[in-house]
């Protein structure tokens, strides 16, 4: 295996994602957990950029870092007594650990059995954005799911405005 700039970048991003994920579940301070989550999400954005999906990377940063991580952090900050929890003992931890290990094993099995040794056979086309736009707007593509999601988001936004008006 040769070391290319891509492998180095992949290694850095993987460390960010995995280390951040570990930090999320292991830190006692909830704010720190939220910040580790932001780090993980940033690493995922980096992976998308590395896999030549710049649109997905930008949306990941915009939505997950700019909105969801901020939302989670603010929610933790404004929730009373959430910050003061010192005892983090949960009696159900063996069950949770078992489920987590099982889920990881299943996901790992699926990924390795299906995609191990599979590499992309052709280069990424240069006009990915145009293709994506066309598949969103054509009825052979994803017109219906796209419109349904748009209407849902619009309804949520109008709902927020209505709530704010009262």
């Amino acid at each position, binding site marked *: 295996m040769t070391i290319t700039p891509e492998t180095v970048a992949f290694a850095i991003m993987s460390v960010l994602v995995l280390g951040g994920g570990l930090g999320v579940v292991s830190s006692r301070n909830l*704010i*720190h957990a939220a*910040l580790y989550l*932001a780090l993980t999400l940033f690493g995922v954005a980096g992976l998308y950029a590395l896999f030549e999906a*710049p*649109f997905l990377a*930008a*949306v990941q*940063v*915009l939505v997950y*870092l*700019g*909105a969801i*991580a*901020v939302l989670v*952090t*603010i929610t933790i*900050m*404004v929730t009373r007594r959430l910050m003061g929890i010192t005892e983090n003992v949960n009696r159900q931890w063996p069950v949770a650990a078992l489920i987590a290990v099982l889920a990881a094993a299943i996901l790992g099995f699926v990924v390795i059995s299906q995609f191990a040794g599979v590499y992309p056979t052709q280069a990424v086309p*240069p006009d*990915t*954005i145009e293709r994506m736009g066309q598949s969103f707007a054509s009825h052979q593509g994803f017109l219906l799911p796209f419109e349904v999601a748009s209407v849902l988001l619009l309804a949520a*936004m109008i709902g*927020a*405005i209505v709530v*704010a*008006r009262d």
Partner: protein
Amino acid sequence: MADVLASLADIYTTIGNLLTRLFVDVLGASPELASGIIKFLGAGLLATSVLLILVFNIWFERKVMARIQDRIGPNRVGPWGIFQTVADLAKLFTKEIIIPDGADLVPFMIAPVISVMSVVLIWAVVPFAPTLIGTDLNIGALYFVAVSSLGVVSILLAGWSSNNKYALLGAFRGVAMLVSYEVPFVLALLVPVILSGSMRMGDIVRAQSIPFLVVMPVAALIFWIASVAEVGRQPFDVIEGESEIVSGYHIEYSGFAFAMFYAAEWAHGFTVCALMTVLFLGGWRGPGAEQIPTLGIVYFLGKTFLVYFFQVWTRAILPRMRIDHILSFSWKFLVPLSLVLLVLSVLADKLGQLYIPGYAVAGSFVDLLPRTALLLVVTLIVGGLAALWVAGLGRRERRRQEAALSVASIEGRAAQQAR
């Protein structure tokens, strides 16, 4: 001679070629390595010049504001006080960084870095001239929205990790404002993207044979208001309100850490002017800029400084708005207005393409005239109706308050007479 002139006309490409030749022929690097080194140098140069131009901008802003307020402004260090900022920077750099007790050290020190990063990264997609752009990403417009949203994270981090209630309050209301204004910001940004049919910043500039400011003045205004709010300048400077929350989210920062927040804020102020120039004023376009790319940066900087002057002007003359007024202005006025504007203009554009002969969506100044006229009419009707609606709301509110006032004064007089 003609060769020299031609190479001077596109000085950016010439310098790039010269550097490539220097690395490949003289120093014996491979072409890939040479292009990598040049990209690295270019990124460093760009980021440095963004921060260096601040030295001038801060002086410019202080001087203009002083003149508007009938003062002289900086006048001690150098001619017209032009080196005042250098002296201020030297002072800031020598100050100690004080870390308060109970501060969360790592987030506390990372916050200023993210704040500068989120601004400087935007410049990677700003086209200075036809042949001078950091990287012409095919998602340029989305990219700068994404990286500038990192600024919110830095404010939240700074406010929380300082372990100071004023910092936290400032961060909360600042984040509430920034998140609210991101919606009209993006909706107004969609207008140039749709009109030019591309998110590539270079294409957006190339599509503006007629600047989008003329085609869609109301969208430009919404974009401008939202971007001033994103920067957090007057009248939207609730992130730091000296009279209310001391200094806002960066109250506990000192020395170089404070200088980074300060630099990020002022650089952001200049950056939104550059974005306004690129998206609505035609970027580097101007007489002869197509043939002589070297001229592009002159037009670009000229327009950007014009917009910057306008920003300083509004900053100097407007008072601070109340936070609830700011938020309702965004959610109850700017967001609905920009949604209506977006939908109607897209509809009008499509109908125009179908039914109006000679309707072109790209081309020269003359080709674009029918489209400009149609969209301008739509924009002005929507904007005019919105203005009338707001004026009506204001009149009703004033009548209500006057009625309440007169009832109160009558009651007061009656009570006095009874006594």
